[in-house]
């Protein structure tokens, strides 16, 4: 006799919807942390006015316009420049001295969303005199988010918190040196993104594309389940040079990862790891 409990109808519908999304559009959320994906799908269902997930799945399969709208609910676009200033301070003080020893640098910002982290890195590297010899690879799965990141335009009301963070992160000049304002928006200097390659890349299904000295992937893997986290960390491990650095979100850890042994804690309290295997 089968003793497995029968899943709730809603859970079955969610599973089928995620299957449809993966099969039809190759956006694979099947290994995302279930509790938060469920919450966001419920939000999408409510706001897009579907009575059930099955109805939503039907629309998704037969109407190509739906996928972009759904994607905006499923991928989180919440960040700010120099988020967790102490992380950037630790990078500046403890990691940059190591990066300086390389004649050229590659940095991968995985899950870059609207680009706040990308511009933060570019500004920090510029201030440290390293931007000229650095390539930054900024990747995300959401094309609409990548377009925003490429534009480098943010609402002016966000600038106050960006400025505060930049100062707390050890910023050497005024953030105002790096943007111009127009029509209620701040436009970041083109020079900051001359060395940035924005591209579509999925930690779920794509492979490593470059060798780099630093990977920053913060508050992306909290949305993954454990097996998918292992896949992502495996990609970072493969991409990093020996003694390369991996920066995670403040509550993310490699403690539960299959790859834990390949890394040592470099700045423990800021979740900055160093690749330590051969």
């Amino acid at each position, binding site marked *: 006799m089968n003793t497995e409990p029968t899943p709730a109808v809603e859970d079955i519908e969610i599973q089928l919807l995620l299957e449809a999304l993966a099969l039809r559009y190759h956006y694979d959320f099947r290994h995302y942390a279930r509790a*938060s994906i*469920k919450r*966001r799908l419920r939000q999408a269902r409510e706001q897009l006015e579907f009575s059930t997930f099955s109805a939503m799945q039907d629309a998704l399969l037969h109407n190509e316009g739906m996928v972009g709208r759904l994607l905006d609910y499923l991928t*989180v676009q*919440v960040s700010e420049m120099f988020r967790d200033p102490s992380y950037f301070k630790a990078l500046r003080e403890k990691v940059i001295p190591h990066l300086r020893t390389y004649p050229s640098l590659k940095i991968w910002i995985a899950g870059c969303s609207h680009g706040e982290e990308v511009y933060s890195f570019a500004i920090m590297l510029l201030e440290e005199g390293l931007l000229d010899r650095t390539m930054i690879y900024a990747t995300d799965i959401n094309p609409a988010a990548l377009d925003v990141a490429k534009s480098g335009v943010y609402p002016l009301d966000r600038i106050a918190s960006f400025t505060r963070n930049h100062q707390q992160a050890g910023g050497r000049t005024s953030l105002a040196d790096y943007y111009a304002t127009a029509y209620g928006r701040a436009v970041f200097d083109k020079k900051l993104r001359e060395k940035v390659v924005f591209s579509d890349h999925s930690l779920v299904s794509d492979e490593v594309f470059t060798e780099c000295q630093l990977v920053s992937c913060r508050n992306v893997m909290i949305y993954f389940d454990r097996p998918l986290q292992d896949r992502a960390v495996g990609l970072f491990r493969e991409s990093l040079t020996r003694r390369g650095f991996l920066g995670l979100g*403040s*509550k993310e850890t490699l*403690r539960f990862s299959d790859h834990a042994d390949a890394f040592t804690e470099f700045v423990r309290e800021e979740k900055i790891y160093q690749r330590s295997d051969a």
Partner: protein
Amino acid sequence: MTAAVVIGASAGAVQALSDILPRLPAEFPLPILVVVHVPSAPSGLTQLFSAKCAVAVVEPDDKEQIRPGTVYFAPPGYHLLVEPDASISLSSDEPVLFSRPSIDVLFESAADAFGAELLGIVLTGANEDGSRGALAIEAAGGQILVEDPATAYAAAMPTAALARCATARTLSLDAIADHLLGLVER
């Protein structure tokens, strides 16, 4: 049977929790997940209650497995959610009712994970967070206890939960602590 406890508190939270958590014995067999609205990191709650409590008090990392006899405080700036396999996942989704962490987000995910075996407790607070989550717990067959608004530091949050949940019981902080201790004896 209760398998887990979730607690939500806002304005006046530290005093209210101080009347409850320090009374739990070290061998208290249930996990307790707590969302307190705090303005910024670090919250200091973990240190504060570690010093006062016999039970373990932690601010969890993402994907920690929930253990019995442990109090988990949601980290400032993150929503705290329970996965179906009783592990924790954190999220930096947008605030809900201006709050991150949000009580509703914890309660709704815990209701999905623990169903009728969940006990939800709504304490003092000056907003409406928690009432929607309490309703989700009730709908899943779980129990709701609410701090008596008449004696709460801020009555709005308990009042909102009572208005939404027909089966919620109103208790004093002392009686809420007694109820938790009663779960151990059974």
